[in-house]
């Protein structure tokens, strides 16, 4: 297997910190430093930093950029002001999900899309094919480094001013210029810092110096699952629709976009199955691909360090989708009990 893995601008820092590096979506990425469990705890209690420079950045520019995006993305961009960001889906004609992404409105004629690493090429090709006269799509991924700094103390540690979720602004961390996006994939407060690729390693050093704990993709996957954020490729795919996945809230069915008619149909008749969060009541760790007795399938599963039990997301028949429903997961031939719960699976207890 002589496949050359891409390396992020921060790669040598990971190696120096003793990270365990693994192939992911064509990149050599840190899966963990000290361990998934301490890294999850650091993000839930204080502040962690993740190198997510493997993610893709697409820029859509021109007087008709907004028209192209309104016609291809599920959420309604018309209400966004420059400085606003929005979670949205790229959908296909069948109403399936090509990718989930965040769109940033840079100005009236310029948008930045931050997309999943594994879908970067597919997304670019998809949008390029549908370009309108007056809308130019460019893959600018190689120009940037992206660091996610997440946790209840992330903003304070970085010395950043308060800002609303899903907004962004130009900023700097100890002299390193970056775009400060108030977004993330952990369910915690924090930001994602987009810097020029050449500044990535220095920005990483500055963020570490301010006390962020280096975290890998293992912790990132666990954190997102604890708060029920779907992972494209697992929980949502080109063959699953957003209504069944519980993502109707980011589908503006009153506007026209690719596949909207299919989604209106699913919405009108009600989905046959739904993506639901569940926790295990018995000791067992659910994993992707395991069957749920009665006609369901686990799409993501792991051990939750915060709950100290198995958790997951599964598609189940609508009749089994209500919170509180008892389910059984086939764990390598053994039936293990669990229960459908409300989103999110993990929520910090409100305390003093």
């Amino acid at each position, binding site marked *: 297997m002589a496949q050359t893995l891409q390396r992020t601008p921060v790669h040598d820092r990971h190696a120096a910190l003793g990270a365990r590096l693994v192939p992911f979506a064509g990149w050599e990425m840190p899966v963990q430093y000290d361990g998934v469990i301490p890294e999850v705890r650091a993000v839930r209690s204080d502040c962690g930093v993740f190198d997510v420079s493997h993610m893709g950045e697409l820029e859509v520019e021109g007087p008709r950029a907004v028209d192209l995006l309104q016609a291809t993305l599920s959420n309604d961009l018309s209400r966004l002001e420059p400085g606003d960001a929005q979670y949205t889906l790229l959908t296909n004609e069948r109403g399936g999900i090509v990718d989930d992404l965040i769109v940033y409105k840079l100005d009236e004629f310029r948008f930045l899309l931050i997309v999943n690493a594994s879908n970067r090429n597919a997304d670019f090709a998809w949008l390029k094919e549908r370009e309108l006269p007056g809308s130019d799509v460019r893959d600018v991924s190689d120009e940037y480094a992206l660091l996610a700094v997440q946790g209840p103390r992330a903003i304070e540690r970085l010395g950043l001013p308060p800002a609303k979720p899903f907004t962004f602004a130009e900023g700097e961390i100890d002299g390193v210029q970056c775009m400060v996006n108030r977004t993330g994939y952990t369910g915690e407060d924090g930001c994602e810092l987009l810097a020029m690729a050449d500044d990535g390693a220095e920005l990483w050093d500055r963020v570490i110096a301010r006390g962020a704990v280096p975290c890998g993709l*293992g912790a990132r996957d666990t954190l997102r699952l604890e708060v029920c954020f779907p992972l494209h490729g697992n929980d949502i795919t080109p063959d699953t629709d957003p209504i069944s996945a519980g993502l109707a809230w980011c589908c503006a069915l009153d506007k026209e976009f690719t596949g909207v008619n299919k989604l209106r149909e699913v919405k009108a008749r009600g989905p046959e199955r739904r993506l639901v969060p569940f926790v295990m009541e018995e000791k067992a760790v659910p994993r992707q691909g395991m069957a749920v007795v009665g006609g369901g399938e686990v799409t993501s599963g792991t051990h939750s360090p915060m709950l100290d039990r*198995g958790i997951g997301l599964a598609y189940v028949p609508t009749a089994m989708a209500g919170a509180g429903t008892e389910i059984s997961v086939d764990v390598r031939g053994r039936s293990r009990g669990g229960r459908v719960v409300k989103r999110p699976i993990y929520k910090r207890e409100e305390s003093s």
Partner: protein
Amino acid sequence: MAATESYPNDLKYHKEHDWARIEGDEAVLGVTWFAQDALGELVHYEPPSEGGTIERDAAYGEVESVKAVSDVIAPLSGEVLAVNQKVVDEPETVNADPYGDGWLIRIRMSDPEEADSLLDVEAYKQVVAES
């Protein structure tokens, strides 16, 4: 806290990264430092039934980490006398102390001569070096 890499001299080893401490006609079994390090932080241990039998080279249980699940391979055949309940309750014990508190089961060997064919520490270190 993870243990530092070590392979005690007084143990016998199986190439599937299991160890055995022979005590008369009984043996205590566990997984090696290499195995727990490769798996990462353990979160679940599925033990065999006490009183049941295990067979050399066959799976007798499972250990599961945050990342993956792995069969535990029996280095010896015998009857399961005891399961380490501490590891059932706190699987991370294996990461902290794979040769001590992190033992998995105690057996009565059905064929003590099997022990002669297990690897000594130098032979096992060679297996690790080639893994």
